[in-house]
């Protein structure tokens, strides 16, 4: 156990890097996912089809392959990103695809009758979307969206493929150097548990708080 304690400073730095990566990626996921998600449920058929193809294609790629492609492959084509931004960009693209699906199923869960009823009382398209569909759909999305953010936090561990010392990378490096891997890996695992379980509980709480009470 002494090893993990003696290196507490390095561990804290690693946790801080993981958190920064998580926030940067989560912002990217939200922007990209919301934009493409709106296209996925838009009244323009060709946009719906194109985003559907995007989702299927991205979800068929392993995230590690995306990361190494951007970091080691794209410099050949003249685009160089730092390890930090490579990770953030790849996680945004990958989990953005999952967010598109969350938005689609959130909207799909609102009954068709809601639209018909809004049209029947004379609401316009934009009013119906803003005041009838959106408030119901967004409540369906809170929990699955929270799961995506948790996955993003875990996904930042892939930055170790690019030699970054976030929690996983730091722990592996230390474990190999110090030859006492057990406490170090336990510490790293605990750090992830302490990050992701409160995140999950927060989104569960939030989704119950915003739910419509019948």
């Amino acid at each position, binding site marked *: 156990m002494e090893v993990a304690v003696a290196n507490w400073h390095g561990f804290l730095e690693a946790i801080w890097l993981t958190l920064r990566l998580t926030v940067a990626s989560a912002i990217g996921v939200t922007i990209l996912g919301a934009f493409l998600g709106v296209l996925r449920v838009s009244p323009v058929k060709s946009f719906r089809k194109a985003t559907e193809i995007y989702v299927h294609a991205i979800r068929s790629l*392993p995230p590690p392959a995306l990361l190494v492609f951007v970091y080691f492959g794209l410099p050949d084509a003249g685009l160089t990103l730092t390890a930090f931004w490579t990770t953030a960009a790849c996680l945004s693209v990958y989990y953005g695809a999952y967010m598109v699906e969350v938005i689609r199923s959130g909207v799909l869960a609102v009954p*068709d009758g809601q639209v018909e009823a809004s049209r029947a009382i004379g609401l316009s*398209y934009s009013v119906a979307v803003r005041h009838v569909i959106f408030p119901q759909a967004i409540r*369906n999305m809170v929990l*699955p969206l929270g799961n995506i953010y948790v996955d993003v936090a875990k996904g930042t561990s892939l930055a170790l493929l690019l030699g970054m010392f976030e929690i996983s990378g730091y722990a592996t490096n230390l474990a190999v150097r110090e030859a006492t891997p057990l406490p170090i890996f336990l510490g790293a*695992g605990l750090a992830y548990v302490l990050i992701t379980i409160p995140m999950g509980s927060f989104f569960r709480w939030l989704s119950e708080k915003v739910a419509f009470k019948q």
Partner: protein
Amino acid sequence: MRAEALEQDFGKVAHARARMIAIAGWAIVAIGAFYLLASLYAVGMFSVGKWEIYARWSVWKFLLGGLGEALKAAVTIFVISAVISVAGALGQLAKSPLIRMAAVAYSEIFRSIPTVLLVLFAYFGAPSFGIQTSPFWALVIGSSLYNSAVLANILRAGISSIPKGQWEAAGAIGLSQRHTNVHVIWPQAVRRVMPAMTSQAIVLLKDSSLGFVVGYDELMTRSQQIGSFAHNFFQAYIVAAIVYLALCLTLAQVGAYLERRSEARSRSGETEAVPLQQIA
């Protein structure tokens, strides 16, 4: 709500506006795609010399061999995870609070830790238990810890979704506890979670690429070797991506087919799939 529901009562003006937006959007995409392809062309990414290595059968044999290794790992992981997850799901539904807590803790903890860390732990940490793990088993152990936790939750959600009346009916016709589970509850539960299981199987297959961090000789590792041999990682990773894409899309199609077939077989409403939200 289906997107079509809104589109359906569009008037002439709204349709015209939607068409204008579509044209403008696609124009932007076309310009972007043209710019991208032009800049890739300018740095010679499409030159025949960079790609000709992929016209050789020996290169493909090497890559597809790596894919075979990835599949071998994925199948092993799936089988081991499925077995553990049945125990996990039964544990989560057990009467004894101690067993229930242990099973829930197992799922919660291993779902919270990144698979890559579990794989690295299985590789570098196992020697302190006196075991030497090969890259293959490090990948299988690490990935199985995570996937068994996820599958256990999926199965548990499937069982919880079976109406109480099924147990009561089975009891009423005199089936024992064991027969109720084996012949009534589990077949329905498994059918309900089929879609979630297939998508987890695809995740698991993609995760086999993590074997690359412990040097397991699979598709990712091999495409990197080809990339460094031919001095172009760009092409090497594009080819690897296409192979993964083809495989996972095929699997997704197979999954969709199985789902349709089991839907056709079962009577209406009986085997509604459990939505993913309920599982997580």
